[in-house]
């Protein structure tokens, strides 16, 4: 009997040990998988970050160019507005009118008929 119990105990122990071994190897396998996954993810994300940061960093050059272009257009806008105002200045228009032969009105006639324009039609 004792021998048999011994055998059973040994078998049971071996079974427990085997089960533990399976669990450990399963755990080891799962851990290895997780670690590999983590490692690969880190590599991928690092590469992605490197790529994105590099892309964004070079965008700085485009921003600078855009800023310069904005400044240039703004300056041009101001110049054009000022040119427009100068073209519309009264002293310029007055000189231009004189050079084109326009003369000052000496006498102004105010048209204020006592009858309607339609009634006056026949007199024209």
């Amino acid at each position, binding site marked *: 009997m004792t021998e048999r119990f011994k055998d059973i105990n040994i078998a049971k122990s071996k079974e427990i040990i085997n089960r533990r071994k399976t669990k450990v190897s399963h755990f080891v396998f799962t851990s290895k998988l997780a670690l590999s996954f983590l490692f690969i993810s880190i590599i991928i994300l690092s590469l992605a970050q490197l790529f994105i940061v590099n892309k964004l*960093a070079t965008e700085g050059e485009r921003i600078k160019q855009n800023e310069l272009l904005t400044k240039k257009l703004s300056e041009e806008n101001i110049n054009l507005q000022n040119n427009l105002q100068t073209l519309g200045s009264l002293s310029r228009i007055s000189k231009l009118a004189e050079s084109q032969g326009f003369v000052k009105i000496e006498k102004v006639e105010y048209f*204020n008929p006592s009858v309607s324009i339609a009634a006056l039609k026949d007199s024209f």
Partner: protein
Amino acid sequence: MSGTRISLLLILFILLFLAVIGRLFYWQIVEHDRLAVLAENQHFSAMEIPAKRGEIKASDGSALVTNKTAYLIYAALPEIEEEPKVIAGKLAPIFLDYEKSQKVVIEKFGEDEESSSSASIEEKEEDREKEEKDRKKEIEEEIVGRLNQPGVVWVLLKKKLPKEYFEKIAALNIKGVGWEIEQDRFYPEASMAAHLTGFVGSDSRGLDKGYFGLEGFYDGYLKGRAGRLNQEIDALGRPILVGVRKAVPPEDGQSLHTTIDRSIQYLVEKYLKEGMRKYRAKAGSVLVMEPKTGAILASASYPGYDQNHWSQYDKDRYRNPVAADTYEPGSTFKTVVMAAGLDAGVIKPETVCECSGPREVSGYKITTWNNKYYPNSTMKEVLQHSDNVGMVMVGDSLGKEKFLSYIRNFGFGKPTGVDLEEETSGILREDEEWRPIDLATSSFGQGLAVTPIQLVRAVGAIANGGKLMQPFIVKKIVSGDREVEIKPKETGQVIKPETAAAMTEMMVAAVEGGEARRMIPKGYRVAGKTGTAQIPVEGHYDPKKTIASFIGFGPVEDPRFVMLVKLDEPQSSQWGSETAAPLFFDIAKELFTYFGIPPSAQ
């Protein structure tokens, strides 16, 4: 043996380790602040974003004063590679060209036009060349001096340089010479309304500041507030998008929308300039105001100045004479005294004055301007003849207290409140200082000093049914999409509407029955009064020098304008009726056409 070597090696490593720790301690703790600043300077750019100065616009929305791009040229001394003399040699011709382009011919009035020097053209050319050569040398020395300044890293070489000159400097590509964009004022109508707008100069810190006129009065509104941009940059100075960025946007200055009518301003300046030449006056002013609101439609004075080149003119020219200079108004003041007498009930238009000869007051003899006397004149005739003796009677009838009370109510002796930086209050002595002779002379406009704008405002009250309005120039202040409107302000009913109506008719009669009757545009009724005031010089009146003036408003039925024309020391004739009056009516005729006012009697 090997044990000793290992120990020695260990000690060496420990010593090296301690040295590294010590050095790290030095850089990270001891030098921390200095290095942090250097790092920030290297990795951060701090940029001031200038605020745009506000514009000044005429009543039709067109700009009288706006902004244009200009350039500030500087030298970063640590980056300079060439010799200062070489750099000066390259920059000086460009700066000299710019200076030459800025020189103005300053017009003078009242002098003989043929007073130019008798030098030949060749001599003048030689002088000019020599002057330019000397000036170029001066500019070079100035640049060299600045580039050789010890202990500085940045020096200013030129401010407010226009684009065409900046491009020439940029093309030279001088290492260490850089530029910043800044703003300068731009005047599309050239020097129009210079006395009203004022100009922009620099304050003690070198920042833009407005002086005189609207630029001075509204400087706080116009200048705005600069913004700031701090951003992280890379080694090449390009912004890093993912880096730190702090921006404070600039607050642009507020714009002023004025009551100045561009067309009226233009024709007033044109006619005044022609009048100054025709009558050979030393100085002159014209002020046009809307009597119902107090809005200033136009104000011109000569000699004037160009706001772009203000530093080349005498400082006396900067002040607007219509608000800053006082003068004895002479007979134009009779309108105010007569209105006071009518309103107080001490006289009526039909009241008769003996006026048969000179009147004696405190030992002084008061005479008429032409030594002609009209016995038994009505008040209407006293004004028509501009009779000083008759006016003394009006003053006496009022008495000192009532006289001074009315004068003060009409706004004399204190500023009108017009929005011009340089306004003064005029000279009106304290009541206790008035003697009988002062009352007598003031009744016909001598012995007291007023500003043109005070007189226009007072006569404007007569045109406006007795209501005194505060003169103003800015009607709206605009900032982005926000607007603040400035409404006309009535400061009091100084005379009754009936008095104003009666006074208006007397002034119409004064024009139609006086020296100026031939000048009235046909079919129009204009109320007015001429004035020829002697100028006090060192305690007495100079018999040869006068201020000729005319004040009036029209059309009488519905006054659209009240205007004062004032000419200082006209040489062609002393008299207001022969100088200021014709000029007034020339402008008035244009105003009737401009406003589309038909004649009342066809």
